[in-house]
């Protein structure tokens, strides 16, 4: 048992919070982030929206994106919702057990609300690595980006570290915006592990109900329904043909 009476969980396993805030799932690794206080805030130069590097009172660091710093409007993704989408992407990632998105929570720092994401130390950018060594993980990320309908993925929001990749900057997702059709994995078989993980979710109504309940606090009902339909659609495709064959198979809401 943990201090707050919750179950001690294995990585990626989910329980509902027994604390007063029942709006978020509690993964063991996210509790530290959510409960942390900021001891130092450094607003960063550049970029389209405000990003603040924060030092936490537990000694860690985080990337904080306040809702008040969401400045750049996209056609179908409203300002004021980006931080919620960052969190939603994390929940989908963890529920599918993909392990791509750094721990991301909605954080309220003395009235300043935004998304707070674990800071990946010693991360490398794409120009510092041989991307061929990460092709399987990048393929998994490509599938993930279809699921969360990411309109913003490019090589600058993927971090590389010790044979892993991390998908950061997941705010422009889930809305019926123009998806960023990067990469070309059409007709290339997806790993069995990824196929199994997606199928495991697509066939588990309880998992779907739990994720749905929490996503509905972050996204519109239409966006959640479309996301679930994409997961089921992609699962069907991957189980029957092993890959996504062409752009025509990528649809915002396939049902």
């Amino acid at each position, binding site marked *: 048992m943990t201090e707050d009476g919750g179950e001690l969980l294995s990585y990626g396993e989910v329980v509902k919070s027994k604390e007063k805030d029942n709006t978020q799932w509690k993964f063991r690794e996210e509790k530290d982030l959510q409960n942390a206080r900021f001891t130092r805030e450094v607003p960063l*130069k*550049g970029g389209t929206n405000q990003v603040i590097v924060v030092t936490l009172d537990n000694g860690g660091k985080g990337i904080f994106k306040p809702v008040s710093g969401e400045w750049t409007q996209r056609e179908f993704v409203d300002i004021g919702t980006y931080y919620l989408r960052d969190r939603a992407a994390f929940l989908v990632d963890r529920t599918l057990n993909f392990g791509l998105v750094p721990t991301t929570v909605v954080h309220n720092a003395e009235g300043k609300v935004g998304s707070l994401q674990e800071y990946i130390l010693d991360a490398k950018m794409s120009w510092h690595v041989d991307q061929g060594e990460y092709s399987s993980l990048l393929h998994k990320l490509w599938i993930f980006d279809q699921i969360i309908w990411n309109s913003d993925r490019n090589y600058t929001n993927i971090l590389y570290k010790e044979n892993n990749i991390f998908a950061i900057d997941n705010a422009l997702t889930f809305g019926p915006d123009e998806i960023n059709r990067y990469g070309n994995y059409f007709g290339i078989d997806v790993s069995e592990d990824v196929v199994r993980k997606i199928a495991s979710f697509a066939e588990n109504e309880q998992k779907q109900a739990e994720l749905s309940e929490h996503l509905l606090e972050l996204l519109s009902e239409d966006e959640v329904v479309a996301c679930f339909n994409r997961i089921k659609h992609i699962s069907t495709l991957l189980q029957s043909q092993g890959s996504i064959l062409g752009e025509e198979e990528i649809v915002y809401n396939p049902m």
Partner: protein
Amino acid sequence: MKTVEIYQLSDQGEQKVIAVCSLTEETVLCEGDESFVNHLSQNGITDYSQTPRITIFPDAGLHFLEQMKNNFSSGYINASDILDNSEQDEKKMLENE
């Protein structure tokens, strides 16, 4: 001269300029971290103003500079607004004359 600065975040949480991209006549020239500059010229950036999205390269000139901020905005790597140093350039030229 119109330029864009690229900032990379260190593990200490500080930003460092790793490259500066400048508009020279009709193309963009970038100087700085060699692997970054090479990667940028080979892979280009996404043009978010187009539907569907396309990849553009430094020979897109001013449009390339304009799109850099939309591409480099994760916090770990950010691009500045377009900085116009025309007045400073003129002053320097006058001082040198």
